[in-house]
């Protein structure tokens, strides 16, 4: 909470109105400078780091609205940063950004508390949009993440039927959530999903956030098993 940054007093609270304050964590300097030039003008980049330790220190110091976080870092996974920062600064939001396709890595960061996942091939405007969305408290699901989540929840569904689940609320997706995820995986934007399902964009956002919550809170072992199976292949 001790921040010397002049903008932090009012800026971080009023994130949705002004430009979001963004912290960059990636071990590739070239990639960081690329992202910085793409985001400049749209968001306020308050700091960057190239590894887990500096990232935790830097984020704690400047308390950004959104942390753009690489899934793979030399000193550990991105989830270490999320876990460490979340304990002290729960208001900081994370958007995972990765070149990795390995689903278990992505799911691990999401489960640690990231609000979304986009691939590094994302275009500049799309990234700005995703950062805004995360800053506003929404979840950002790329088609790929939607696919992973559908896969993870579908994986053990037939086997899970005959087994009592601890919390059916958390362990299964509703039909509507599945519909939303499917459309996102098909390449629909939130707006297009809303139009398709005759619901408002806000409702789409709340469905996606609910899926994210289930993904993060579900204790069902199938999710772990799914990840383990993926790692084996």
């Amino acid at each position, binding site marked *: 909470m001790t921040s010397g940054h002049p903008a932090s007093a009012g800026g971080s609270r009023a994130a949705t109105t002004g430009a979001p304050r963004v912290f960059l964590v990636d071990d590739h300097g070239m990639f960081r400078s690329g992202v910085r030039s793409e985001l400049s003008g749209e968001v306020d980049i308050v700091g960057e780091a190239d590894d887990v330790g500096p990232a935790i220190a830097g984020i704690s110091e400047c308390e950004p609205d959104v942390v753009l976080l690489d899934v793979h870092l030399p000193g550990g996974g991105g989830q270490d940063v999320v876990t460490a920062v979340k304990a002290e600064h729960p208001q900081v939001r994370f958007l995972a950004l990765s070149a990795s396709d390995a689903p278990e890595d992505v799911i691990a960061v999401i489960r640690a508390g990231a609000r979304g996942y986009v691939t590094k091939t994302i275009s500049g405007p799309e990234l700005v949009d995703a950062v805004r969305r995360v800053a506003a408290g929404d979840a950002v699901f790329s088609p790929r993440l939607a696919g992973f989540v559908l896969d993870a929840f579908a994986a053990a569904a037939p086997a899970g039927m005959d087994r009592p689940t601890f919390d059916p609320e958390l362990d299964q997706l509703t039909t509507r959530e599945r519909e939303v995820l499917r459309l996102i*995986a098909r*390449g629909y934007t939130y707006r297009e999903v809303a139009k398709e399902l005759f619901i408002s964009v806000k409702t789409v956002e709340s469905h996606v956030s609910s899926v994210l919550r289930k993904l993060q809170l579900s204790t069902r072992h199938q999710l772990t098993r799914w990840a383990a199976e*993926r790692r084996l*292949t």
Partner: protein
Amino acid sequence: MGDHADSAAWRSSPAAEQVGDGWDHTGSWQQQDGSRRPDTSWQNWQDASGPAAEQRPGGTEHWRPRLESLGLRWSRGSGDGGPFRRERDGRLAGGVAAGLARRTGFDVTTIRVVLVVATVVTSGLCAAAYVVTWLIVPAVGAESSIASKALADRRGIGLAVGLTSALGVMLAIASALNVAWITSLAFPLIVCAAGLALIWRNAPQDELAYVRRLADPVGMVGGGPRSRTVARVIVACLLLILGLVALLSGHERYALFRPLAGIVLVIAGITMALGPWWLRIAKNLVDERQARIRAEERAEMASRVHDSVLQTLALIQRRAADPHQVTQLARAQERELRAWLFDAKAPGSTEGQADTVADGVRMIQQEVEAQHGMSVDAVTVGNCELNDDLRALLAAAREATVNAAKWSGAPVVSLFAEVEPDAVSLFVRDRGCGFDPAAVPGDRKGLTESVHARMARRGGTTTVRSAPGEGTEVSLTMPRSVADRLPRRP
């Protein structure tokens, strides 16, 4: 090599044996004199094998005239008169007998019988000579003998010396027990063990199989690893019992006790003295093997990276002026590298026949990206084996994707496949120009029809949604038959 080729001709046409002048065209063959006594041929043998040939004991020679006088020349053909080489084909162990047979014209079986008899008569000396011959006579087509390689192999020599010392200990024990027949075998045993160790370390791959068979005759017996273990244990027990019986037969039961205790002490002493050294030799061998494996892996990695990543980087540098092509190259390379790193697929191996839905989708993605220079975002949920229905589905999806790539004008096409228990669905979506389904131009209609017909023939459904300026989405659904619903994860 000419030598080798001629030997093949010799084997394949027995008729040529009868025609003496059939060999005259090669300058290297000298006198084709069928009546030449085999003994003279040893000169060539010694030329080829150098001074080490001195070690060959007289044992191998003295049986020859004797057996010949006994009328054992029945199968003598004409030898080829070339230098003595170990044969590669028709060998049982080192190919020495086969080589001798070829050199002298005797039947291989005759020579083998003679060698075995000689081994027994000379109490093992002949076997030692065999191993030494194996070491110092090059194989057919080989440039140098195993011995010349073994001289440079310091670890191999260390191993041989280690084995020799271990054997020496055992033989010392045997002589302490006054087991005369073991003591008489000492020299041949040591020579054989050391020689085989050197051969094992330095022989080329194709010869190693024979060494392995010599070293582990039980392992060559058919059956699973379990029955082989059983066979091995049985053989080991039999040998142990035989050894004990041999020991006990020469001694009274209690008289054996004191020498045995003495031997145990001697073994303990020698193990204390030489044990670390033996261990080091063994450890060196393991280390060396691991280092070799690592080096091989590294070399393979380097060549893979060179063939793929470095080539692509070079291409990208040359085409830096064309951002479109650079993107395409980078994407193709990224996909290939990813497939290799995460899915353990060798670069290039994704081409060809796909076996699962996920593979098929990946192939469509790859093909369209490569041929039409646009991005295809592919997402697959679930997976299953392909059957004819699903192949038709993938073919239809491919048409739809190519169609979108050609006509939509959009930079990205989204491809989504979902495998559910009762159906497989595929969605091809673009945000391009779109069209009015009610007023389709002829070419588009033709494609829609072909996609539609393809699906309908297999009981699938096709839906095309499009509007001008809003892009196009083709939805394909193929029901799965009950038999195919066994789940299969990627």
